[in-house]
């Protein structure tokens, strides 16, 4: 590790950790589902970069033999394969999340996760035939929430 403050390694690692931090921040602060999904995507992207950096060192070439010439130092192919796998898994789960989001919005008329939680609680209690325990937020207001207020709701959080 060189003594310089901003060497190549530090820049790349700060990108990976930065993406992860921003993603976690988005998940923690936001209530809107789309924003949370964006946050998870950023967190995943940061983790992928971190994995790829794990054995990176300058001066290596890509792990491919071109025209029969074997380079002196090749990059580690294992993290590359892992990240390839992780990216594809990520997109599968992303598609699933978006499909579920469409259905949940159709049913509950909102994507604010606090409201979704309350509506879900309400539905479970209704099905079980019990009173919903009085919580800090009144569920009665949630039911009245019109479908189109999603965007405004989100900005007010």
């Amino acid at each position, binding site marked *: 590790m060189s003594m310089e403050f901003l060497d190549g390694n530090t820049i790349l690692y700060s990108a990976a950790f930065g993406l*992860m931090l921003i*993603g976690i921040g988005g*998940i923690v602060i936001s209530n809107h*589902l789309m924003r*949370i*999904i964006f946050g*998870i995507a950023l*967190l*995943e992207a*940061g*983790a*992928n970069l*971190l*994995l790829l*950096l*794990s*054995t990176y060192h300058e001066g290596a070439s890509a792990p491919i033999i071109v025209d029969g010439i074997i380079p002196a130092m090749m990059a580690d192919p*294992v*993290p590359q394969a*892992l990240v390839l*796998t*992780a990216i594809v*898994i990520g997109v*599968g*789960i992303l598609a*699933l*999340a978006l499909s*579920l*989001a469409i*259905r*949940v919005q159709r*049913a*509950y008329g909102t994507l604010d*996760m606090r409201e*979704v*939680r309350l*509506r*879900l*609680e309400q*539905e*479970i*209690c209704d*099905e*079980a*035939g*019990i*009173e919903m*325990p009085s919580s800090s937020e009144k569920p009665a207001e949630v039911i009245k929430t019109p479908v189109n207020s999603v965007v405004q709701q989100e900005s007010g959080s």
Partner: protein
Amino acid sequence: MNLLVLMIALPLLAAFLLSIIDRASSFAARVIGPLVLLATAAIGLSVWSQLGDAPQAVQWGGFQAPLGITLYADQFGLLFALAMTIGTLLLWPRSTGNQLRSSSLALLLAGTGSGLALSGDLFNIYVFYELMTVVSYGLIASRGTSGSFASTLRYLVISGFGAALALAGIALVYQATGTLNLAQLAQVAPEKLNNLQGFAAFVLMLVGFGVKAELFPVNMWVPEVYATASSRVSALLAGVVSKLALLIIMRLLILVFHQPEALTVLLVLGILGVATGELAAWRARDLNRMLAFSSIGQLGVMFIALSIPGNAGIFAALAVAVHHLFLKPAMFLLAARWGGSIRRLCGAAKTSPVAAGLFVLLSLSLIGVPPLPGFWAKLLVIMPLLTLDQPLYYFAVFIILAAASLEANYLFRVVMKLYDKQPTAVPHKAHATADLATAVFLGGGLIAAVFMLVPLADRLDSIAAQATDVSTYIQTVAPQSLEGDVQ
């Protein structure tokens, strides 16, 4: 060549081909799933019988470890692989909607669970775990109600968060060691992972894999999912799938992460899990969520057991896990008809006396009344905790005992309602025969355990001993040294 890989490959193959088989004959499509699982269970049992004291290692694709991916079969892993296969068979989902999809998902769950239990490669475990998570989403959402979609979505958000953290943990491990093979990690961990980076990797992976194991801060999904999914799916998730996630954490703890701080983290999270889970279960007004919260509490006890250093901790955690493996699915199956408000259960024992009797038995074992197995399992946790002679461990004992009295209180409330003389306005429906038969079978297993306590304990002890035998693990896999190759 080893037939063990078929435990994983055959269910996947059948799941891929199920919709094509259905075009030819819908009858074949219905029977092929259970048949495949029977075959894989037979394979698993035959390997189990040959296993004895010598675990087996299989290299996928025949590549030398650590270049390829290892499949490691010891009694510990095989026990849970078999539990997954047989559990899926017993709790075969019977969807009202699309049976074909449910069958595919069940097959995938069985294959994935077996793979997860047997895998000996860190990233392979991650991929198996992700697949199992996606399959669980499908099983939960297959009920088709808006509640099941919403709970799946919330589960997905928590799981996605955890999975990304686990991936970052894997990156840290690979950065420090340059390998993903668990056997090789076991070799180099004392030197390379016994530091801050190793601890960070452990915490990241604990949170990631803890989502399914209902670990304390990432278990918000539990009550919602178990209340909205069908009871067979809840039984599968609470009974078997959560144990597989626990198995991963146990493997990591035994082989890779040896920091004393790791045990403290487990102890604190376990205590918090027991306390919050049991209190919430005590407050619950409907049976499904009561069982869900009590499941969080039980897994908390397992985490406390894991925090005991050495063999005794693994043995105790294994005993509680196996006990819970039999008990929770049976309880969720009974809740199939009795789900919903506990007040509505008034006089339900009259319509279904067998189910009510079974519920009493299961409750007694859950609380830990001797001579039922639940008592011995809890004793195995408490005894070593007392010998450790540290304030936090004494506190854990106190929490476990307090939780038992809470459990007694809320389960007694349900039993009182069941045998209440005053019937409610709503007539009770009897349990479906298949549900009741499975629950009776599982309950019968508990009673049988009472009469075979000593051989059972010996067997679990030897399984735990094999699981904690790191040197055998390394010798069996025999990863080639990295230092020798690169010059």
